[in-house]
């Protein structure tokens, strides 16, 4: 159990929290749009599980690409020591405020990017398209994880951050095949929305800590 191990655990925790919030927010935003496509009418649990797996694999691949890109961009953009210490803190605060606003805003259902799949006729492509659209949806949580990926020391750390983010956000989709059997959907949605707000507050604090630490350390 070396120092590196504990450090890795710590930044993976942040990403997991963010993933949890992002997933719940996604579900709160897009649940009504995605459910009919992923569940495809009376397709049965097996078929839904298969489509869901395809959806999750697509999301995983998109995040893998984003982790790589964000890290390379980060190396180029945050090469200056002062910028590296201060800018991520500011970005965290801005995106965290957006995340909290997103969770308390009443207009969540209006903004689902997954509406685009309504124009697709080929059912087999729907889970893949949903996976791409869902991963790239312009939500504050995605901007936060991109900031995080960009500021990691190594590309492996960037991958691990995105992996934790993927796990956290995917947990919310796992009950989808059984969605028809879940009686208290409203309760789950409420908990998800609150978790989003909590994650926003956590990243606001993280941003403030980073910013103050960055200013102190010059």
């Amino acid at each position, binding site marked *: 159990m070396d120092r590196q191990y504990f450090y890795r*655990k710590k930044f993976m925790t942040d990403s997991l929290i963010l993933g949890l919030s992002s997933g719940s927010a996604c579900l709160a935003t897009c649940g009504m749009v995605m459910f009919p496509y992923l569940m495809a009418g009376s397709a049965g649990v097996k078929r839904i599980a298969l489509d869901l797996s395809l959806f999750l694999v697509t999301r995983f691949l998109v995040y893998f690409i984003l982790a790589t890109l964000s890290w390379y961009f980060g190396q180029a953009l945050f090469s200056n020591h002062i910028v590296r210490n201060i800018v991520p803190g500011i970005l965290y605060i801005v995106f965290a405020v957006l995340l909290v606003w997103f969770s308390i805003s009443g207009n969540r259902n209006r903004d689902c990017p997954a509406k685009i799949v309504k124009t697709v006729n080929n059912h087999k492509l729907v889970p893949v398209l949903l996976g791409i659209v869902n991963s790239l949806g312009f939500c504050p949580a995605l901007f936060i994880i991109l900031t995080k990926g960009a500021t990691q020391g190594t590309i492996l750390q960037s991958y691990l951050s995105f992996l934790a983010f993927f796990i956290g956000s995917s947990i919310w989709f796992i009950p989808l095949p059984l969605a028809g059997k879940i009686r208290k959907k409203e309760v789950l949605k409420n908990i998800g929305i*609150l978790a989003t707000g909590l994650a926003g507050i956590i990243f606001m604090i993280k941003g403030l800590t980073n910013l103050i630490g960055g200013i102190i350390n010059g």
Partner: protein
Amino acid sequence: MDNNLRLTGTGKTFGKSLLYTFPMFLITFMFMTGGRPNFSDLASSLALITAFLLVNILYFLMHYTGKTDRYRAVLFIIFALSLSYTLIHNMLEVRRSMSFSQADVLECKIPFCHLVIPMMILPAIFTKSIIFPGSILGGFADISSMVVLWLIATVVLGRGFCSWGCFYGGWDDGFSRIRKKPAIKKIGELWKWMPFAVLLMVALTSAVALLPTYCSWICPFKAVTEFEQIVSVESATKAGIFLSLFGGLVIALPVMTKKRTQCSFLCPMGAVNTLSNKISPFSIKIDKKVCTECMKCVEVCPVYALTPEDIKAGKVSVFCSKCGKCVDSCSKHAINYGIKGIPAGTMKNFSRNLFLFVSFLFMAVFSAGSIISTFQGLLKLIF
């Protein structure tokens, strides 16, 4: 059976209440003295006698007057204050500070509290390790005895643990009683689910980080127990969060709303106990035949467990902490303690007596040590 009987003080004799108190008298005597009372030291003897009399008089009054919450709250608040006093006193004696260092963490010297339990479960399953830096057996506030005590209490009392066993609940319960009328009356239904969101976050993050994240970052009661030594921006931020949450959720909001806001909107243990309410044999029942739907109980409920819809449906929600405030407030005696499987309105006295005996005994035994220590400390300060 005794459907028409209700302990209101007028219908019951002094002797009958004394008779109900007698088993409590014997058991608390055994627990407090260990069966062998030692009166060699004056301060210790006085503290022991005071604590013993306090507990038994309160229990007697519950039976004699028929009021539950009024006397429960007295012991509950004293329990919270005395526990904080004992913890702080202990830490100041051992460490000369309320803060703990990294050395204390490495030597597993941090006192354990039940709020850590929801965070321990997943790491314990996956890694077979306890993520809290406290002692497992022996020592002050060890992990095993606390887990066993909580497990027994939560299975038997359900969320009643939050009003009869939690040694922090008395803080916001106390502050919620300061004002006569609430300044803030309406809080959105959505917020009732916040403890579940907190539970979800802390359980998962603790499992990944193998650290008790609630204790490290959120717990408002760090402000009145122990906290991390301030040596960095991060530890200063944590201290700021602890103090803000304590000031906001334990002091300001309870005063403004007359509700236990920390318990209702933050505590992850409250969420676990809410779920355990499903298995607890005790509950609060509404007798629809007698209820006039005056909504007085909705108004006084300190944990937002009652809504007008619940009353109309004749059901109390799973958020109920069985404090008895609604029971005390009902002039028609339509809301009562009950036992699962027994219809509302029947065996009311039997159900209440059984619940009071179990829950009060738990609180009395659990709180006795810290109350005696506190009285002892105060007596030493005075004399």
